[in-house]
């Protein structure tokens, strides 16, 4: 069990080396990848580059955290990219109308993604449609809504503070030798802390695990399975809204086509992070490391000058290898 797992009894106390390796396989894979890049490229470990990597993964990280909750319930959500686009477009258009309505733009933008995610939530929780199909439906609908609202064109965000979310730093980076703390990363950390607390320290989190582990047993134990699934999808919708805001802020534009294909990167991070597609198990720390592994690969391969075509091939292989290694170490 890893840092956030809260599973301290028995497992590590015995000091069994194999179990130790098993618990930290993912961290070891991650450090291994880092070590290779560090040796191959002198700039890889420079503070600026490290901050860059974190900034790079922030948006995918937030998406992946929401996706982790959904996958633990035994589901999946393919609509996350489209939901992001809705948030961006709605925010941008509100600010177009009145550049001073920052808070309204944020709340309504994120709220819009949450509301649309209820379509998936109802279909999955109440109607018992397979999550893959339900979210496929939402994916198309949400993209359509974004295109309709935006009339098919990008809308520039006319509010400097909003774009600060995507491009700003906590302090003036030039004061600390060009190394700052990006606001995007701060948001990722805050969301990671919140999801950690929800998953490990609330009733709702426990129910998420129980529903994913055995829906029938959860129901027979008095868990309202419909409610838990519904709110998990809506919570994921909120996090998609947050990620959509981060993306729109970063490119200072609400684009109806934004976020296309982002669902796959999010799912990849969750799976590399050791969360089982079958539901019932998974960890926030795993997902963060999963997102970091993807981020480091993207970054390292660019530093080494590997063509982006080859990058895709290598990434695909690494996904399979990481999951295989994880499976092997988990096996008894």
């Amino acid at each position, binding site marked *: 069990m890893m840092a956030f797992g809260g599973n301290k009894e028995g497992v590590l106390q015995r000091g*069994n080396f194999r179990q130790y390796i098993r618990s930290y396989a993912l961290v070891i894979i991650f450090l291994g990848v880092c070590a290779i890049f560090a040796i191959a490229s002198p700039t890889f470990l420079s503070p600026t580059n490290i901050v860059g990597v974190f900034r790079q993964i922030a948006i995918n990280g937030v998406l992946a955290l929401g996706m982790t909750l959904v996958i633990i319930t035994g589901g999946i959500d393919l609509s996350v990219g489209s939901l992001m686009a809705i948030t961006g477009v709605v925010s941008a258009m509100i600010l177009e109308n009145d550049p001073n309505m920052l808070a309204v733009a944020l709340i309504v933008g994120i709220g819009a993604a949450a509301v649309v995610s209820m379509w998936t939530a109802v279909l999955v929780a109440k109607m018992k449609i397979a999550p893959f199909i339900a979210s496929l439906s939402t994916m198309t609908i949400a993209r359509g809504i974004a295109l309709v609202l935006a009339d098919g064109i990008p809308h520039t965000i006319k509010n400097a503070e909003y774009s600060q979310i995507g491009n700003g730093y906590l302090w003036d980076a030039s004061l600390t030798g060009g190394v700052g703390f990006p606001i995007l990363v701060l948001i990722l950390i805050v969301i990671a802390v919140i999801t950690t*607390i929800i998953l490990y320290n*609330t009733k709702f989190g*426990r129910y998420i695990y129980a529903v994913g582990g055995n829906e029938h*047993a*959860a129901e*027979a134990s008095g868990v309202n399975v419909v409610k838990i699934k519904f709110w998990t999808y809506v919570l994921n919708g909120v996090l998609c809204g947050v990620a959509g805001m981060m993306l729109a802020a970063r490119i200072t534009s609400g684009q109806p086509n934004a976020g296309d294909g982002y669902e796959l990167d999010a799912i990849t991070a969750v799976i590399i992070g050791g969360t089982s597609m079958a539901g*019932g*198990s998974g960890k926030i720390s795993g997902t963060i490391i999963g997102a970091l592994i993807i981020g480091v690969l993207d970054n390292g391969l660019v530093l080494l000058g590997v063509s982006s075509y080859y990058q895709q091939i290598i990434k695909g292989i690494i996904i399979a290898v990481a999951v295989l290694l994880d499976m092997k170490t988990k096996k008894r």
Partner: protein
Amino acid sequence: MRKMILKMEGISKSFPGVKALDGAAIAVKEGEVHALMGENGAGKSTFMKILNGLLEPDEGSIEFAGQRVQIHSPAEALKLGIAMIYQELNPIKDMTIADNIFLGREYTRGNSAFVDKKKAEEEADKLLKEFGLPVGAKTHMRELSIAQMQMIEIIKAVSSGAKLIVMDEPTSSLTDEEIAILFQTIQDLKQNNVAVIYISHRLEEIFQIADRVTVLRDGKYIDSRKTEELDRDSLINMMVGRKLDNIFPKKIVDIGSIVLEVKKLTRKGAFEDISFDVRAGEIVGFYGLVGAGRSEVMRAVFGLDRADQGEIWMDGRRIRVKRPQDAISNGIALVTEDRKDTGLVLCRSIRENIALPSLGEFCKGVFLDKEKESRMCREIAGKLTVKMSGLSQEAGNLSGGNQQKVVLCKWMMKSPKLLILDEPTRGIDVGAKAEIHSLMGDFAKAGMAIIMISSELPEIIGMSDRIIVMGEGKIKGEFKLGEYSQDDILKCALGGKK
């Protein structure tokens, strides 16, 4: 003297932290029904997994038909002539009987890749006739009963030339009639010189069907004896290494006022016009053949299914049960028939399983009070003597008896007024069974009302203050303690009059 077909000797197998097998052995003759006995956790499944090639032994040798063999996969085992019929059957339900029988060795047209459906169906029909199964080869597996599916598995094994068939708890979900048919089939197999390794917790069956018995305990070979040399007590003694004086430690308890009253409960197609009551301190046994509608009634009382008509009263107050939460908040607990399917979240820890219905009580505001949770879980697990490495052990890693105790812990935490137990000791070894019976006695003594569904007549008779017999979705009869014989109840269940 018949020839030996299988000889496994000195088989050992370790998993991290546990030595599952430590010098296990078995020797089976051709055409013999050989029972493999032991408590849950004695290593029977691991032993059979090694024979089937699912696990590789750390030490030991396997001789099959006089040849030293190494088995690396179930396919290799099958090739040698060793077939397995598991406790939980998993046929491909949307395929026909013919497709299932010849799965993996389909007839083809000449040497082409195309399957010869007609030939397969003809051959399958022949086999079905031979085994006296009144269905056609084109029937889909979905339409068969569990007993029939099992028969298909046996046909599949025999037709592929199996010389040894391992049956793991084959009767656990069969009715008495179906068991009789299965035993007839086993006799036929013997005639054809096919050996059977038979695993079952039901001792009566062993004495009925087995020629020899091999006993394992804690992964070790204990003894191998002819069945006729053994009686019930000596066999139990070999299995548990201690004498069980009283299998049903029924405690005498004062019976209080009515806790649950069910009035004319009906669910179309499942049961109708069910009325009964249960009093504090009373254990009411529900007996009937599989499919009599007993579990369905309890599911409706607990809110897992909706009843179409009828009323449920608790403590003199009518309650409405739409979902399990409603039943739980009214003090009802249900230990379902199938631990793995509806009882436990196997991939989660013991702690999480025990606490699941009680999480509301472990909350400080919105946050969980994990310390209180652990303390309470540990306390209750200790009371019910769950054998575990710690509260964070995965529920799926426990033996059947301990899993059942975890389910009991889960509900005891809620201190229910009414505890419904559906087949509480199915698939559980003799020792754990006695412990669960003893716990039931304690619960009753504490004033809990208990309903127990069981298909084991000795258990029903041994534990109940009152027995209600169901058949075809209706209550067929009711018997008070001391006012019946075993035959009365069986006759009532089989359709005779009270």
